Structures are given as structure tokens and as C-alpha cells.
């Protein structure tokens, strides 16, 4: 979302990890500085922040395994009591995932929808953005830099501004059926491109010119260079963009609300979650389990690929 000088400092910093410092005599200095700065109070404050930041998620996790009567109704109590009376159940998860009755959360359908939405969008954005980024980095045409800054600025158009006209365009001009994935795929791809082009351009423009020149001398055309040289060399940047795009689309609610039509055929899991948590009733005890089903995939992606995720942040952009 923003481009400023910081990422440069930042990426320099990640390379120069503590302990892996190239100069021998920097080590003792570092250690002395460390003893000076990490006082008892700082440690205590850090632990408090870490606890405060993790307790909410942990509470949800514990609650999702507690029996319905413990969550709502006269015999309910706080989730921390679970460690005293030790009652856990998988029933909540079974209930949210299976279609049982018309009031059912039926999350498995929506879960599949989320996957069916997010995978094509991620591929579309990666391919189209890297093609554009390649041209912005290595193509020669008039107004290239001005156009690139314009694309960068597009990131800042609030999605809210685009929704009404785009919906009209989809339904009235293109006649896209309301109950299909097509609207969501196209809309998400459109909104993901500016950030994608910006992130990948930063990376692709750093590829040494000699590599590309050598391929040209050997008679390689643009498409060969792009698929055989540029893309394989850009894998780290592609990975971090893929994670961003994945998380962003998976976690989206606004685009889904406007374009999905809200049925179990198309709507993603976030939309269903917002629906069932928005209505108060006898099935309130399912909310924590439902929420956990929806955050488990992003959490897995996040913990599995954290390294790339952080690298993506540091290479200078974030979608808002």
C-alpha cells in the first residue's frame, strides 16, 4: 500500500541477523548492549503484551470445544473454568460442518466455496501481475514510469468506491449470472492487481540485466524469457504475494457481501460466519467452533509460510 525508503533498511536488517554478524569483534559489543537494554521491566512488559495478545484467540479455541450448556444458558460460565471441570466435546464442530436441518450452519459447503474462490484468484493475480511487472521493469515504451506510478496510486481507491458501478457492470453489461463464482473471481483479481504489480515489479527490476541480455543473444523471445527466466527467479516474491493474496481473499467480507448473492452455492465462509454470528439465538454456542473452522486455514498458511509473509511485508507493500 505504501512505498517509502524503509524497506531498504529493513531488508538490510534481516540479512544481518544477530549472531551471524560478519565481524568478529562486533559480537561482544552486541552482547553488552543487550544486557543494557533488556531490563527486567522490559521483559515483564513484553510478556504482558504477549499474553494479552494471545488470550483472546486462546479463549475462543477453548470455548469451541465446550458443551453447549457450558456456553449459553443458566449453567454457563467462562471458558477458563474448562480447566477445572474438564468437559470437552467435538459435537460443536460436527454440528457446524454437517448439514442438519434448515437452520444449520452447514459450513463445509461455504468452506469449499472459499477454496474455490481463493485458488483461481491467486493464480490469476500472480500470472497477470507478473506479466505487467515484467513489462514495467524491462519493457521500453513512452510514459512507462508515469503509468507505473498511476498503477501504484490505484491501490488507494477504496473498494467501497468501486463496488456499486462494478456490480452494475457485471449484471447489466456482462450479464454474469448472480449465483456463480465468476463475479467474485473477476472482482478480486481486479482489486488485487495494483498491489501485485507493485510488489513484483520491485523484485523483477532487480534481476540483473545481463541474465536477460544473454538469453536474448541466444535467440530467446519475450515469452520464453518471461516463463523460463523471470518467473523461476522471482519465486520468493511470487510466494509472498501468493500468501498475501490468499489471506486477503480468504478473509474478505465486503467483496463477498456485494457479489456472491449470499447462497451456499457461492458465498465464502466469512460471509456465513458473519451471518450466523449476527443472529442471536439458541445456536449461539456454535459461533466459536464456526469461527475456528474459518481461521484454521489462514493460520496454517501463516505459520507454515511465515518467512515469506514477513519478507513480503518488508519488500514494501501491504494491501489495505
Amino acid at each position, binding site marked *: 500500500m505504501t512505498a517509502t525508503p524503509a524497506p531498504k533498511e529493513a531488508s538490510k536488517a534481516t540479512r544481518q541477523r544477530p549472531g551471524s554478524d560478519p565481524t568478529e569483534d562486533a559480537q561482544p559489543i552486541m552482547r553488552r548492549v543487550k544486557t543494557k537494554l533488556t531490563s527486567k521491566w522490559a521483559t515483564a512488559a513484553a510478556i504482558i503484551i504477549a499474553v494479552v495478545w*494471545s488470550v483472546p484467540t486462546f*479463549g475462543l479455541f477453548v470455548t469451541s470445544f465446550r458443551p453447549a450448556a457450558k456456553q449459553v444458558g443458566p449453567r454457563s460460565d467462562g471458558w477458563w473454568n474448562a480447566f477445572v471441570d474438564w468437559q470437552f466435546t467435538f459435537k460443536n464442530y460436527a454440528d457446524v460442518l454437517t448439514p442438519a436441518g434448515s437452520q444449520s450452519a452447514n459450513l463445509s459447503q461455504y468452506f469449499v466455496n472459499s477454496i474455490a474462490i481463493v485458488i483461481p484468484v491467486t493464480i490469476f493475480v500472480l500470472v497477470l501481475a507478473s506479466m505487467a511487472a515484467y513489462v514495467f521493469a524491462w519493457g521500453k515504451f513512452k510514459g512507462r514510469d508515469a503509468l507505473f506510478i498511476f498503477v501504484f496510486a490505484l491501490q488507494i481507491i477504496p473498494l467501497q468506491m468501486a463496488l*456499486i458501478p462494478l456490480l452494475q457492470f457485471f449484471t447489466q453489461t456482462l450479464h454474469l449470472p448472480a449465483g456463480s463464482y465468476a463475479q467474485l473471481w*473477476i472482482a478480486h483479481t481486479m482489486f488485487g492487481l495494483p498491489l501485485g504489480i507493485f510488489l513484483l515489479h520491485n523484485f523483477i527490476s532487480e534481476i540483473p540485466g545481463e541474465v536477460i541480455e544473454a538469453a536474448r543473444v541466444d535467440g530467446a523471445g519475450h515469452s520464453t524469457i518471461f516463463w523460463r527466466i523471470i518467473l523461476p527467479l522471482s519465486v520468493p516474491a511470487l510466494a509472498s504475494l501468493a500468501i498475501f493474496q490468499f489471506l486477503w481473499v480468504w478473509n474478505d467480507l465486503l467483496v463477498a457481501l456485494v457479489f456472491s448473492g449470499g447462497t451456499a452455492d457461492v458465498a465464502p465462509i466469512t460471509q456465513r460466519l458473519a451471518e450466523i454470528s449476527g443472529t442471536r439465538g439458541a445456536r449461539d454456542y456454535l459461533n466459536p467452533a464456526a469461527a475456528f473452522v474459518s481461521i484454521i486455514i489462514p493460520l496454517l498458511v501463516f505459520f507454515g509460510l511465515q518467512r515469506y509473509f514477513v519478507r513480503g511485508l518488508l519488500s514494501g507493500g501491504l494491501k489495505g
Partner: protein
Amino acid sequence: MEFIGEKLLQVVIALAIFAAVIGLIMLLVDRAPKSVKDKVTVAGFLAPAAILMLVGLVYPAIRTSMLAFTDAGGNANGFDNFVWMFTQPEALTTLRNTVIWTVLVPLLSTSFGLAYAVFIDKARGERVLKSLVFMPMAISFVGAGIIWKLVYDYRGPNIEQTGVINFFRVALGMDPKQFLLDAPENTIFLIIVMVWIQTGFAMVILSAAIKGVPVELIEAARLDGANAWQQFRNVTVPGIRGALVVVLTTITIATLKVFDIVRTMTAGNYDTSVVANEMYTQAFRAGEPGRGAALALVLFLMVLPIVVYNARVLRKQREIH
């Protein structure tokens, strides 16, 4: 489970169509006569993204700007929507809340993130400690809304509390509080959720920047007799100024557009609405697309100075290259 097969088929068809289009472009680029080859390449590689962005962002932005000056029936009504926005009490509350959000969220997230980054710098288990605070970034705003509804949960004064905070309030002898219902402080409790999410982002960027500050500088300051606070204030902070600007602007923009948290936690009721949420309500629930568009335009104008600033920085960077 037959629905999976049908959905999968749609995905496969879409991917096949996409592959065919891209393959066609590559074929055209390769077969183009030598004299125009470079031009065809530029056009072919750029066209899909350019068309999508024109249709999906540029054209809608222009349309919305025009829509902002029409009423519910689509007739031009001058500045009526803006007059409504700046005179109606509910609309004014929305604007006030947005200002509170955009001031508090960047400030608090950056402060917590910076403090945490400094405290855990080079500490044992730094990576795990970072993950704990960074984790909320991966959770959807909807999920975060449910997590925090549980934290803020309220029960009557004489029964067991199920929310953590009310549990502590009762334990300390206070009355339980309806955190999301009592205006105006309920806005603050929604803001806390956003701070919870954004602090991890601030922490990661600032932590990397702190590691880039030369150790020699800090050591020199220490030898000059600076205490920990002075070292932080006079060496570390100036050294990470660039990163601080990135973090503040990024979080500010994200905050201006915040929608999901308000939508899932209070749906904008009890005086908690913000511009992004009110825009959705007006355009898609209340049948007032003109008002919705006007709110979106105001949102854009609020973000514009930040864009202009960043575009200028970007242009400077490209000139140096």
C-alpha cells in the same frame, strides 16, 4: 458431498479458459513480425491487467464520483448528499467516529508494536514471541469480531460472567459492563480490536528496522552516558524514521477503510458506525446509492493526501535508479 465435484468443475473450467487466453497472448507475442515485436509484447503483456484495472477501478471510481451528486432516483441533486452528511446527527456521528479511529489506531498500534519490538529485540525466543503478536494479522476481521465478542461478553450482575474482562471487573468488585452497547466509549472497544490486529504488522516492520540501526551508534551513545531511554529516543527512533512513516501511513489507510469489524460486532448500531460501514449501509441496505457514493468519495479524499505523498516518494526513488 456431490457439491464438491460440481464446484471443482467450475474452478477447472475457469483455469482452462484463463490458460487459453494467456497461451494465445504468448503465441501472438512470439509470432509478431520483428519490426513491431517489442510493441506487441508490451501491449500483450500489459493488456489483461490494464483492462481489468480500468474496468474494475478507474471506471468505477469515476462513476461513483458522479453518482455522489444524485439522489435515490438517480436525478442530479447537487451537493445534497454532502449537506446530509455534514448536518444529520447520525451521519455526523459516523464522521466523528472515523476521525477517532484514524487518530487512535495508527498511534496505539505503532506505539505497542514499537515498544514490543524494542523489548524483545535479541531476547531468547524472539521468534515465538513475535509470532504470538503477529498472529492476529492472519485472522479475518470477521473472526476477530467473534473472538472479541467473547472477550467483551456480558451477563447480568448476579450470574457467572463469561467474558474475560467482565470476570475481572466483577472480581475487583465493579459492575459488569455492556462494552459494545454503551456509547460513546463502545467505539474505543471496537478500536481495540483493530489495534490488536495491526500491532503485529507495526512490530514486524519496526523490529526489522531496529536491527538495521548500527550497533556502533548505540554503543557510542552508551559510552557518552546515555541511559536506555535516551539511547532509544536519540539513536533508535531517528534511525527508523522511514519505517515509522511506512507503518503509520499503511495503518492509517487500512483504518480509514475499516468495515468488517464494525459490521460483525455492532453492525454500526449504538453510535459506532464509521464511513466505510455507513457507505455499505446506505448503498446496499437503505437504497440510497447517491449517499453511499458520496461517503465513498469522502473516504477517497481523506486517503488522497497519503497517496500523493507516497507517489512523490516513489517518483524520487525511481529517479535515483
